[in-house]
């Protein structure tokens, strides 16, 4: 027997007094704990697994996915259990100390497990609330409200812009028409003034001219009669000279008439020139107005086309963002095990009764997916299947554990 006492160091190393070793009547050999040196696991999960292993060793592999070959707590619990069961009423001091320590650790681990389960339940409840909120947010289409407002703003702005473009076109056409009227009025006023001037100032100074032969001189008839001399020879000469003078006057009149005719032709030509110039002015001005109107129409068409292009791009952008957000929400809901359709997991709803409309759909069984399911939906379905029993009973891991304990009579 050794004088060494059982101690529990702060480091968690349990040292057993060799005196504490005893004969195990069930194994037929002496228990030797001197070589048992175990690191007390600080990990809560490890402790939880140890407790579960102690309570229901046969279920431990199902609860914990990790191997328990190196789980010293499990070995220790099994060893203690075997020792205690076979010791009967004769416990040594070391054994009592070990049981006391084990009981303490069990209680502590149970408390920690309870806290962990409570935290897990809280997290799950919070996750469920979040998931529910996301599902509601997705199904109700609330997530698209902002996009709808954006689309409405785009539509209204488009209407305003289109109205602005059409107003600008209207103003342009009005200005074109007013400018044409002003220009036409000004040019017409100029030509009217010209025509009025030409009408009031006929340029034919020869019209009033008359060629005269002049007066014939007297033949000294009285003087010749006083001396009894006839004036006939004088009168004959005067008439001959007068005839010659009249012929000269006629030639002069012909000259005047020619000049007058030329002047009249000039006046007529000038009037025709004025009319032609006015016609050319009106025609040119009309062509310019047509050109300006064409430019305005083209500008309006281009502006409307550009506006439509911008509106389409804006709508496309908003709709793309909406689709992206919808996809993100759907993926998050699916990854969290939620349901996108709102009909429940396999329960179906009246809205999905596609048989009524003649389109028979091959529905999968509960927990199954359509053949067209995406990889994300497949993963989500697997997660949902894992959680379905617990969710169906609204149970938690703690309740599951309690159920297991109850099954074992604890």
């Amino acid at each position, binding site marked *: 027997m050794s004088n060494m006492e059982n101690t529990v160091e702060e480091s968690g190393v349990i040292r057993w007094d060799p005196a504490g070793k005893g004969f195990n009547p069930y194994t037929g050999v002496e228990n030797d704990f001197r070589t048992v040196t175990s690191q007390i696991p600080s990990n809560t999960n490890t402790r939880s697994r140890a407790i579960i292993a102690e309570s229901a060793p046969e279920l431990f592999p199902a609860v914990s996915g990790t191997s328990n070959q190196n789980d010293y707590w499990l070995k220790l619990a099994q060893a203690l259990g075997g020792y205690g069961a076979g010791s009967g009423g004769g416990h040594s001091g070391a054994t009592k100390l070990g049981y006391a320590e084990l009981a303490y650790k069990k209680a502590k681990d149970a408390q920690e497990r309870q806290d962990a389960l409570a935290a897990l339940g809280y997290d799950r409840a919070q996750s469920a609330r979040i998931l529910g909120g996301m599902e509601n947010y997705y199904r109700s289409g609330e997530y698209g409200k902002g996009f709808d407002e954006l689309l409405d703003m785009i539509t209204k702005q488009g209407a305003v812009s289109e109205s602005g473009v059409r107003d600008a076109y209207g103003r342009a056409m009005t200005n074109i028409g007013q*400018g044409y009227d002003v220009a036409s009025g000004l040019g017409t006023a100029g030509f009217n003034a010209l025509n009025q001037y030409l009408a009031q100032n006929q340029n034919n*100074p020869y019209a009033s*001219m008359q060629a005269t032969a*002049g007066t014939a001189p007297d033949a000294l008839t009285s003087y010749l009669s006083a001396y009894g001399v006839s004036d006939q020879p004088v009168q004959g000469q005067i008439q001959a*000279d007068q005839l010659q003078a009249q012929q000269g006057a006629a030639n002069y009149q012909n000259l005047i008439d020619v*000049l007058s005719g030329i002047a009249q032709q000039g006046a007529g030509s000038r009037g025709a020139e004025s009319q032609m110039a006015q016609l050319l002015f009106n025609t040119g001005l009309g062509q310019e107005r047509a050109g300006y109107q064409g430019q305005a129409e083209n500008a309006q068409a281009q502006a409307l086309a550009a506006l439509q292009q911008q509106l389409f791009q804006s709508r496309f952008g908003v709709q793309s963002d909406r689709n992206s957000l919808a996809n993100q929400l759907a993926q998050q809901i699916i990854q969290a095990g939620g349901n996108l359709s709102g009909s429940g997991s396999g329960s179906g709803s009246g809205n999905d009764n596609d048989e009524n409309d003649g389109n028979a759909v091959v529905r999968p069984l509960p927990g199954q997916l359509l053949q067209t399911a995406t990889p994300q939906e497949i993963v989500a379905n697997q997660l949902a299947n894992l959680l379905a029993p617990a969710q169906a009973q609204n149970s938690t891991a703690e309740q599951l554990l309690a159920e297991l304990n109850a099954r074992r009579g604890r």
Partner: protein
Amino acid sequence: MAYNPADYEARRRGYTQQYGATGAMNAYANFLARQRGTRGRQDMLRQYEEAQPKVVAGYSRRGLVGPNVKSGIFSRGLQTLAKQRARNLQDYDQGQLEEQRMYDLGEAQRLEAFKNQLADMESEKAQTIANAARQLYANRMGMI
């Protein structure tokens, strides 16, 4: 080319002033010519009035005319005098008349040229106004 009414009014005043000044000068020259013509005709008549008694006296001294005497030579001489007087007066008056015709024709041509100047200017002004109107229209359309 921009339309400036002052330019046309200045040109109109220039044309009118030139036409008026030239016309006044020509009218004064015509007046002087007619005055000269009148004086020359009066001189011619006076000379014939003074020459007539001398011609009769010459035939009288030669005894070709007198109381109960009337020769054919005197009659032909007196008729020749009357015909010469009539021919000279006719030629003189015709000369004056033709000179007046030339003046009138010149004035008519000058008036025609003056009116053509004004009409051309008015046509140019109307065309300038039309061009200015089109330019104004183009400027207004350029501001849209």
